[in-house]
């Protein structure tokens, strides 16, 4: 049984929280109305609505943009997988200490320095237009493939650094424990260091994944008909900017599940390793 004192306190707390909710609702309503009225009464609003939020054009351009987005998604999945594997390899190379690996280690360092500093758009032009211009046999001339190669080259450098930071954040005592059990350097890396490092950098990796989702749209500069390019074609046809807004919203929608996934992942790790 709760005491009279406690019941009175709870009742007070409840009334306070009801009051807070009411205040929040009221202030939000006032704010929304004020913003809405200001925008609607602004002299340029009809023109803005006409060229940015035209429902009819949005609806008409949607199928083409969705088709383009499907291409972005495929590029995203393939590039994402390649980047993860290659970045892990580059990061591991950079942490090797044996003198045999010196050339590979140096190469990995040069690669990361170069491709992390190079603007992605320059890389896209060089790979997308420059490589086919060499007319070498075996070089693909599909803009989607070439764009993907440029994305993989740039993002592998970033993601490798994320992995390396994770690897270096694992306390040396973990390595000592693994080595003392008789595990070799490679087994220690694969079974003890990397699993912990990957878990630790998961939020940073997902952040880079969202960035990659957006940058997949850059393959449009090579002429690949993705969501951005499709929107551009629709825009050119209608002289209206709504298709860009549609494509932009679709990219935003794409990023939301990744963010939720990151949250869920964080909670899962917490559940398993925290608390009693």
């Amino acid at each position, binding site marked *: 049984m709760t005491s009279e004192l406690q019941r009175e306190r709870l009742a007070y707390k409840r009334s306070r929280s009801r009051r807070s909710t009411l205040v929040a609702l009221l202030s939000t309503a006032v704010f929304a109305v004020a913003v809405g009225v200001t925008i609607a009464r602004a002299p340029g609003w009809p023109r803005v609505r006409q060229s940015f939020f035209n429902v009819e054009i949005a609806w008409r351009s949607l199928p083409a943009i969705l088709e383009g987005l499907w291409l972005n998604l495929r590029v995203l999945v393939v590039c994402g997988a390649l980047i993860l594997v290659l970045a892990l390899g580059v990061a591991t190379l950079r942490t090797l200490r044996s003198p045999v690996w010196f050339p590979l280690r140096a190469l990995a360092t040069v690669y990361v320095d170069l491709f992390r500093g190079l603007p992605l758009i320059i890389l896209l032009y060089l790979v997308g237009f420059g490589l086919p211009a060499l007319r070498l046999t075996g070089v693909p001339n599909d803009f989607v493939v070439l764009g993907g190669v440029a994305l993989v080259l740039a993002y592998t450098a970033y993601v490798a650094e994320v992995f390396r930071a994770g690897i270096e954040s694992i306390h040396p*005592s*973990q390595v*000592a*424990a*693994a*080595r*003392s*059990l*008789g*595990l*070799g350097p490679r*087994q220690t890396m694969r*079974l*003890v260091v990397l*699993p*912990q490092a990957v*878990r630790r950098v998961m939020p940073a990796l997902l952040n880079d994944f969202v960035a990659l989702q957006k940058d997949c749209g850059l393959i449009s500069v090579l002429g690949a008909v993705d969501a951005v390019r499709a929107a551009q074609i629709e825009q050119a046809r209608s002289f209206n900017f709504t298709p860009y807004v549609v494509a932009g919203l679709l990219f935003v929608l794409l990023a939301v599940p990744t963010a939720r996934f990151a949250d869920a992942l964080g909670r899962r790790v917490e559940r*398993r*390793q*925290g*608390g*009693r």
Partner: protein
Amino acid sequence: MTEPVLSVRGVVKRYGGNTVLDGVSLDVREHEVVTVIGSSGSGKSTLLRCVNLLEELDDGQVLLDGVDVSDPRVNADLARRGMGIVFQAFNLFPHMSVLDNVTLAPRVVHAVPRGEAERNALDLLERVGLADRAGSYPEQLSGGQQQRVAIARALAYSPRLLLLDEITSALDPELVGEVLALVRELAEAGRTILMATHEMGFARQVADRVVFLDGGRLVESGPPDQVLGEPVHPRTRQFLRRIIDAGRL
């Protein structure tokens, strides 16, 4: 007399200009429990890490069953298979369950099939009183439980020599007893143990021999009653007086 399991000969270890071990020699025979005592910074942990080849020696030798494992031409990974070490800070693998922590070395290093490794691990966990926590993760356990898992992990591949590096120093006082009881059991079962400790009372009861390390030198060695009861060297007396004053003996 038979070859000692461990023979440390004139081991020197320096960090920069700081000499941590200054020519330490020490033998541990089969079924013997040798306890290393000494103040913080006297080189106890460094000695154990050198024996386990986690540190490179600056001079001297570490012989395991007569084989010089400190020779750079010897594969240190192979040599370590004969030893198990338990650390002050447990150093369990946080991303693995208790069972996986214990079975890792047998499975990966000794190629024991998973089923067999897990049966052995469960037996060991039973012995350290934690069979019901096999599926837990280290962070879900108390310090004392984690340290018992670490001991089980070090025993899982039946090493010739067990190294215990101040394994109760990071524990709350009420958890020290459960870990020491386990070490006592291992000693009585005839394990060969080299341990660094601050628990003088425990050293006196369990050790066959106590060695006192001071400033990287081994200044006194003998049966526990002699070294802890009637120390000869003034440094040992001084150290023990401080311990007694602190109420630890």
